[in-house]
């Protein structure tokens, strides 16, 4: 295990460095940082002094090292728009996005896995067909359209749910949560469904096709021939064998849920990172953009690491003394 995890860790660090490089280049060379910070009336000398003070005259490598050093400490400079540290802005916004993303991911798993198992087991059942049709809709409708439709029905026509915002939030330490208030939960429902819908259908279809595949394997036939119960076969043997691809996809999807939250946050005016990022693009607020880039990359890398560790837990073949690689297929 250690060797395998250490190798992955090293790869992760490398990926993060590459991303930091991109963010750094963006930070330093897209537009002039000094120009963004000062007024028109500032003199050349003052500008030059600021350059010197910011270290912008140092060799690029030194600047990059400093940039990485700061990034590790969570220092991403001042936002041009807000004139406040980016880290502070992120701290305010991150809980909203993470809560939304996690609830959306949970929603897609909790609904998607049972639907996938069901449609895999009852291939041509009536309910399966309904699920499959429904999943086609989920896959083909763009996210924003789902969001707008939901708003139209549940906020505008029925008036059951708020159409924007996060509702009341409660602060616990530095973390603001909407999960503890009724209005917070109500506000979360539609954005989470909107954000999770695509993943839900994806996971359902994935589980279904993996189930169909696994149910055809010899070890399932042999399990049946030994008289094991359907329950043991379907859930103990078959479902577990579908998990490796499902873990992969889920991992990737959680990453993209966080990234795609931008659209959902815009539709629902959700006060999260995505909204902040969009505004930053509008106003060429480079520090926010580069910090966002690094943060999202960081999430992807961490999730990938978790996925790798889960593989290791689920599939004993990866745990082998590598000398005896097993046949499979």
């Amino acid at each position: 295990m250690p060797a395998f995890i250490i190798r992955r860790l090293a790869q992760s660090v490398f990926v993060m460095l590459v991303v930091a490089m991109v963010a750094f280049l963006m930070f330093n060379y897209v537009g002039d940082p000094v120009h963004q910070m000062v007024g028109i009336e500032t003199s050349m000398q003052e500008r030059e002094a600021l350059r010197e003070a910011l270290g912008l005259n140092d060799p690029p490598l030194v600047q990059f090292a400093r940039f990485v050093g700061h990034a590790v400490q969570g220092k991403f400079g001042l936002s041009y728009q807000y004139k406040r540290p980016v880290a502070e802005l992120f701290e305010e916004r991150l809980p909203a996005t993470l809560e939304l993303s996690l609830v959306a991911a949970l929603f897609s798993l909790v609904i998607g896995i049972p639907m996938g198992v069901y449609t895999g087991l009852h291939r041509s059942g009536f309910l399966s067909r309904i699920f499959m049709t429904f999943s086609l809709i989920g896959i083909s409708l763009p996210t924003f359209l789902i969001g707008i439709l939901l708003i139209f029905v549940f906020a505008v026509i029925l008036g059951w749910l708020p159409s924007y915002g996060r509702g009341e939030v409660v602060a616990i330490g530095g973390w603001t949560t909407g999960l503890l208030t009724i209005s917070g939960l109500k506000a979360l429902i539609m954005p989470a469904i909107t954000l999770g819908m695509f993943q839900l259908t994806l996971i359902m279809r994935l589980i279904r096709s993996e189930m169909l595949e696994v149910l055809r394997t010899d070890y399932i036939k042999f399990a049946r021939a030994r008289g094991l119960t359907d329950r043991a076969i379907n859930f103990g043997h078959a479902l577990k064998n579908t998990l490796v691809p499902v873990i992969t996809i889920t991992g990737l999807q959680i990453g993209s849920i966080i990234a795609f939250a931008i659209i959902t946050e815009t539709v629902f005016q959700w006060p999260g990172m995505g909204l902040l990022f969009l505004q930053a693009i509008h106003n060429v607020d480079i520090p926010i953009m580069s910090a966002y880039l690094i943060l999202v990359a960081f999430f992807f890398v961490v999730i990938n690491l978790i996925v790798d560790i889960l593989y290791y837990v689920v599939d004993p073949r990866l745990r082998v003394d590598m000398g005896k690689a097993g046949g499979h297929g």
Partner: protein
Amino acid sequence: MSEPLLNVAHLRIEFNTRRGTLVAVDDISFDVMPGEVFGVVGESGAGKSLTGQAIIGLLEPPGRIAAGEIRLDGRRIDNLPYGQMRRLRGRQIGMIFQDPLTSLNPLYTVGRQLVETIQTHTSMNHEEARRRAVALLEDVGIPAADKRIDHYPHQFSGGMRQRVVIALALCANPRLVIADEPTTALDVSIQAQIILLLKQLCEQYDTAVILITHDMGVIAEISDRVAVMYAGRIVEIGGVREVVKNARHPYARGLMGAIPSLHRRVEKLNQIDGSMPRLTEIPSGCAFHPRCPQAFERCRRERPDLVRVGESQVACWLYGRTS
């Protein structure tokens, strides 16, 4: 003479396809006695596996039993409700598949798979089941069984895995095991070991075996009686000595000629030309007539049924009484 353990009577297996109904197994009947090794031999596509699947109740749709009866100890089992049939599997009738590499769930230790199966069929607690599992692994010749029990399938070689598969098939002590080409996927050097192990264990546990294979040599080695199948029908059935030494049906004789035997002088290796017909184009009369060196007019028109010839039964007009 004792009662048969298994009785298959007029079994017919069909597939409903878009192009109509295909008959894959057509009116076959045979008995398996308690503790005997019953060989089923024939070229690919003869219907051997389907017969085995029908007996254990695992025919896959669209395949279905269209006619006939299967009895175990005189009790009909081909029309049992699903739950009852499930309890029979493993407990009364076990099955061993061709490929040990894919027969075991890769994600569980062999011990877990054994314990699960034992506990499905007995009231043993985990400890007892595990002790039985270790004993079984020892029985099938796995060294250091008490350690190996916690290993995963990929940590075993092919031959060892097939031993584990045999242990799994036998772990609830079934009365009958259907072994569908149990050694085909194995290295030639270990095939004989596995076959002998199977034979010896089944003797020890008093389990009857239906041994399905292409390999007449294996049949000659260990079975008591043998059925030769061609295009979904039994063309010759009888005691193994009789059929091997004295095959009557031209197809059976062809198969015997193909035995690469060390024990028997083979005068000439007469391979049979051509191949098994597809289900969609089974010839009229005797299905073997296009390939049969001795075919004559009647063979093309009328289908021969099994008739007693010496101590065997043969379906061939060469032996039929004129009607």
